[in-house]
């Protein structure tokens, strides 16, 4: 049995076109490759 109140929490307002800029700037683009390169460079620094 589905509970509407619980289910509606799974939804959220959709991003509008005006929000694109913020969405892009706020994206964390750090990837595993970045972490790996940083780790290697940190080790070399030591």
């Amino acid at each position, binding site marked *: *049995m*589905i509970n*509407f109140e619980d*289910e*509606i929490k*799974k*939804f*959220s*307002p*959709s*991003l*509008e*076109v005006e*929000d*694109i800029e913020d*969405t*892009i700037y706020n*994206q964390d*683009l*750090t*990837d*595993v*490759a*970045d972490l*790996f*390169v940083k780790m*290697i460079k940190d080790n070399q620094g030591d």
Partner: protein
Amino acid sequence: MRCYNCGAELSEHSFCTNCGVDVALYKRIMRISNTFYNEGLEKAKVRDLSGAIVSLRQSLKFNKSNIKARNLLGLVYYEMGEVVAALSEWVISTNLRNKKNVAADYIERLQSNGTKMENLNSSIKKYNQAYQYCLQPDGKDLAIVQLKRVINLNPKLVRAYQLLGLVYIATGRPEPAKNYLLKAKEIDVNSTLTLKYLQEADRMIEALNAGKKTSLKDKLTGNTQDNNPGVTKYVDDNEYVIQPIQMKDKRGSGTVLNIILGMALGFAITFFLVRPAIIQAANDDAQEKINNINLQLDAKNLTITELEKANSEYEDRIKSMSDSLNAYAGTEGTLASMESLLKAASVYLSNPENYLEVADYIRSVDETAWTEDTSENYKNLYYALKNAIGVSVCDAYYAEGNTAYNNKQYDDAIAYLEAAVFFDETDADAIYLLATCYRVAEKDTEAQDTYNKIIELFPNTWYSGRAETYLAEYSDTDD
């Protein structure tokens, strides 16, 4: 694939042939990213868009510069009606690689179609409004109306179908819920949320059908508590027919009752559905008007501020100019002095013998008002005129002063003699008589100053001797 250290193209070796760093792990990370991309691509091909999103995001977590994965992720979002998410991915993609990137083409295609873009944005706004209705206790009907509009504008927006399905289920209407959820499933075949709601809708439909069947069976077997004597019941083929015996008699009153019920229903719909929408629209209009008025008010405030600033600047300038003018045209200012000097020159040029009139004008010139900016020519003219008439004027005023002194009219005598000394300081008789007048008139300070001046101008003369004597007397008196 390029080396993370030097940027050289990597070979099949586990180290960079250019700089020698170990790239085994780096290559593995890149391979994992590609594996997730392939998985995402396979899922996208069979329309498992939700699954594709998960895989592609994983791929980008390993390698953010996996352009193919990012572009495909944008496409998947676009296919699900999520334009903003799609555009974000494509914009990032074009920033990472600005040449030979299909994402630029996607963005251009989308932006070139203004109407479509406007519709998509409008659909998102309406979806957000519908979502807000859903959060209100009695907003489900409005949410249904709004979500249907959203779907008309953006027929691929999966989340709109899902929300609509949920609202229909929540309002006990599983059939339309199922229809919309099936449409969502056509776009994204493997969304857990869609499948869950579909399952619920099926369960509700089954329950309803089971209830109907039980009810029908009871009626067919006569196992019913409805023993209304006013009806005739019979089975025609597979249909169970219930016919009221007095149908003709009750038809008129039934019609009236139906009309009344219909009107009541109409009023109820108007009250619960249309009225809130009208109120909302009126509120929106009012809010828009308030916003417009606020904007106008801001603009006017800005204008007023600018005008006040300009006014203040003008006032400062007026004050500055007024100060300058006052400096020139004060009570004994330069303008008046200049006018007097010009008149003096004019009178002197027309009749040099009229030196007393010239003298009056010359005395009107205020030497103390002169500044560094005062013209040299102006000063030269002043001194030239003063010197030209000086001796004659001094003699004339001395004679008048002497007469007044003899008549013991000391104030008049002082006025004449001050004028005489003003025009000719070198006239010892005039200055000595002036000092005498001061002394007799008991203007001691002026008398002592004048005696000091006599000693300074005419040293070792009878005048200076007398001056010293009188000054000594003043000294004795002070002691």
